């Protein structure tokens, strides 16, 4: 049977472009968009996407009994968190008054400070929305064919602050450097949207589709 990539659909956000992008970069794999824990557990690798607020995200994951599935699958399956899907992989998020999360990476999720003028008199708006460069702080198979300092599309008001600096794969600069990509063992996560980041994003998703940690 063909290899399969499961996209965890817990009802938040637009999985259309992500599904299409994965199909495009992994013609050998079947892309399964599902909220059924069993169907997802049967996939070879999983993507945890997400937009919106962290409290509702965690509530929906629990309601659909996907939270335990994600933690269990994270033991050995290649797994990729995107945007809010990355943030819920930390232990805790300050958003929505503070919410415990999945804890796949030690550390927490914090808000960008409120807009203050930078040296040029420009204020850093929140959300951090648009294209920013990602500096690769560590070599990794996922970076294969992706130039250092490449542009990726971001849209978020909170960002991960991983406790273990060795988990950081790449950083972006918005007032200060923050973790834009993290990984350990068989789990990786991006704050930016590879499915909205043109060819560089496609390369990254293609690398994940073939990643065998």
């Amino acid at each position, binding site marked *: 049977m063909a290899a399969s990539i499961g996209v965890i659909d817990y009802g938040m956000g*637009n999985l259309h472009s992500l599904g299409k992008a994965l199909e495009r970069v992994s013609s050998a794999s079947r892309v399964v968009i599902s909220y059924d824990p069993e169907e997802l557990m049967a996939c070879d690798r999983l993507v945890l996407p997400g*937009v*919106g607020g962290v409290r509702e995200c965690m509530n929906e994951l629990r309601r659909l009994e996907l939270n335990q599935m994600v933690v269990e699958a994270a033991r050995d399956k290649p797994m990729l968190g995107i945007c809010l899907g990355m943030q819920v992989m930390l232990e805790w998020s300050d958003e929505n008054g503070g919410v415990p999360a999945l804890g796949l990476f030690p550390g927490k999720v914090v808000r960008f400070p409120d807009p203050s003028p930078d040296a040029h008199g420009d204020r850093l*708006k929140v959300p951090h*929305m648009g*294209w*920013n*460069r990602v500096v690769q702080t560590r070599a990794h198979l996922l970076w294969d064919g992706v130039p250092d300092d490449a542009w990726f599309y971001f849209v978020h008001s909170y960002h991960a602050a991983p406790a273990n600096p060795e988990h950081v794969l790449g950083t972006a600069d*918005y007032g200060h450097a923050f973790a834009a990509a993290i990984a350990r063992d068989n789990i990786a996560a991006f704050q930016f949207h590879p499915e909205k980041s*043109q060819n560089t994003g496609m390369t990254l998703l293609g690398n994940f589709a073939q990643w065998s940690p």
Partner: protein
Amino acid sequence: MLAKRIIPCLDIDRGRVVKGIKFEDVQDAGDPVEVARKYDQQGADELVFLDITASHEARPILFQTVEKVAREIYIPLTVGGGVRTCADVRCLLSAGADKVSINTAAVENPGFVTEAGGRYGVQCIVVAIDAKRVVPKKPPLARKSARVEPPRWEIFTHGGRKATGLDAIEWAVKMVEHGAGELLVTSMDRDGTKAGYDVELLDAISAAVSVPVIASGGVGTLEHLHAGLVAGHADAVLAASIFHHGTYSVGEAKHYLADKGVQIRL
């Protein structure tokens, strides 16, 4: 550092890209997928689709168009025009839009912005602000000593036809409080004139809110894009005719801005 965004805007009528001057003399300008692909290849940072179809029955055609474009273009896509209910927002997002733009419905019911933002995330809710300068009443005899009044702008809805009496700056602040993730600010005075953005309007709104501001209305030259980003402190610039008529490509615009020291994704 975050790059300033260059956003071509496409008017969509029953599944086709159209161009015209202020909705008059509308001409067919091609297939949305082809036009979107062209701008994507030229390096557009995002795309905005504005549905100008008057009849509500043509709505499913818009959803199909969005679906077709989202299948092929891997940059963010905003869709606006006639978004009035959470069902509209959901349909557009599930068709493949990344953000939706809300205008008239936000004025009629500001709570709609809160509801849509709460349900789908504020990052996908753009509030479109169509603003027109209010000409201050001059005293019968203009005296040199008279204090110059600061400019004011008023909000218009229904494609710029209906005045609301709302102050544009106050409205912008209120919309962000209600959960707008981004503001698309169009000067009704400048729209279609090629005389440049209303930089004062952009600057005033950008200084008053914490979310990104997209400049719109009046671009005729590359210098206008620069003015919107630098003097107007906009985070993104939207333009239609200079790109559609081939006056400049998106790439030319980006190189021009980068040469002038603006942070741009090349």
